[in-house]
């Protein structure tokens, strides 16, 4: 026998009232209370180059997927990336790509995630065409998606396109460090350095991932990423190497103009 009833508020304890005339549910018997709304089964996400992840993070991912499912209609996929997937809890927010061909406001979703889970979400709303275009032309996209978790399976076997104008614009961003070494903090310096190295490896047609780029940073600058982030740098020696790799990358990008115009 099943009875559907509402939980009502009591003064000391809340209760569930059931009709006096009933068959079964005799006084003193134990019953199970369960919410009527069935929890929708969440599909298991797909992992790409994730060695291990803390269970609590998986729980957060599941909760975010549920929130988006409820509040965003017709999306193609949700892809989690960035520092949230790194080991430990040294992240500021959860980076996620919401792949959708329709545009809806995501501010509302961000707010719900923050309110319900207590974590900031950096949601990038992107359509499939732009995502594929980004993956083919932008080293940062390749690096970001080299390690990710997605709701649905996705295959990004896109052919790299070297668009010198895009790469030049990306590289220009890293010039900031040369003029502003003293005012930038360690994390900013790391991101600007990572940007150059990612571009450098990209133009050399090398494989990209955060680990590969970090390893290359260590090799070129002879200093660990950790120390860069902590801003423990020898200005003269670091800037010398930085300028050299900046010029080298710039030259490589400019060299690609010839092959691009052919």
């Amino acid at each position, binding site marked *: 026998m099943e009875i559907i009833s509402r939980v009502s508020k009591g003064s000391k304890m809340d209760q569930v009232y059931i009709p006096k005339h009933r068959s079964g549910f005799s006084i003193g018997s134990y019953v199970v209370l369960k919410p009527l709304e069935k929890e929708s089964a969440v599909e298991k996400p797909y992992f790409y180059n994730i060695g291990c992840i803390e269970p609590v993070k998986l729980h957060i991912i599941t909760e975010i997927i549920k929130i988006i499912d409820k509040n965003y209609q017709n999306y193609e996929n949700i892809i989690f990336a960035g520092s949230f997937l790194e080991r430990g809890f040294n992240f500021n927010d959860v980076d996620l790509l919401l792949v959708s061909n329709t545009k809806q406001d995501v501010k509302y979703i961000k707010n719900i995630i923050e309110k319900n889970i207590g974590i900031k979400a950096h949601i990038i709303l992107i359509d499939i065409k732009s995502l594929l275009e980004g993956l083919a032309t932008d080293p940062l996209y390749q690096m970001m998606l080299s390690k990710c978790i997605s709701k649905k399976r996705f295959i990004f076997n896109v052919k790299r396109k070297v668009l010198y104008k895009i790469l030049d614009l*990306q590289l220009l*961003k890293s010039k900031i460090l040369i003029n502003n070494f003293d005012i930038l903090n360690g994390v900013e310096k790391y991101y600007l350095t990572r940007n150059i190295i990612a571009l450098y490896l990209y133009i050399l047609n090398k494989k990209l991932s955060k680990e590969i780029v970090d390893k290359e940073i260590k090799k070129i600058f002879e200093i660990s990423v950790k120390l860069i982030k902590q801003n423990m740098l020898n200005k003269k020696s670091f800037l010398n190497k930085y300028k050299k790799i900046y010029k080298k990358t710039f030259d490589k990008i400019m060299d690609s103009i010839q092959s691009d115009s052919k």
Partner: protein
Amino acid sequence: MTQNRNKLIELFIGNLANSVIHKILETAIDNTEISNKYEKELKNSFEIAKKYRDKINPLYVPFPDKDVEYIRIKLTNKVNSELLKRISRGYENIDLKLVKEFIDQYLKILVVI
């Protein structure tokens, strides 16, 4: 104090020049759909230039003519030299006529002129 001001002006010029170059290179890209949406960590040159501007007196009124002239010349030279470097390597679609327009636009926004 003057020495400090001069140093700040140089830093201001360097960052603003970068920002103008960026703007001009953006206009040289024919494919407007390609843009990097994943750059939250990277500071932008204009923001930094603005920070320097906020440290240089006079704060809320335009600079004296002598300073404006110096900044304008130095900015134009820096931007042109960077752009010409690219043009000489075969970079297409760079419109040098935009340099003056963007410099004036930015200097106005930052209350330098």
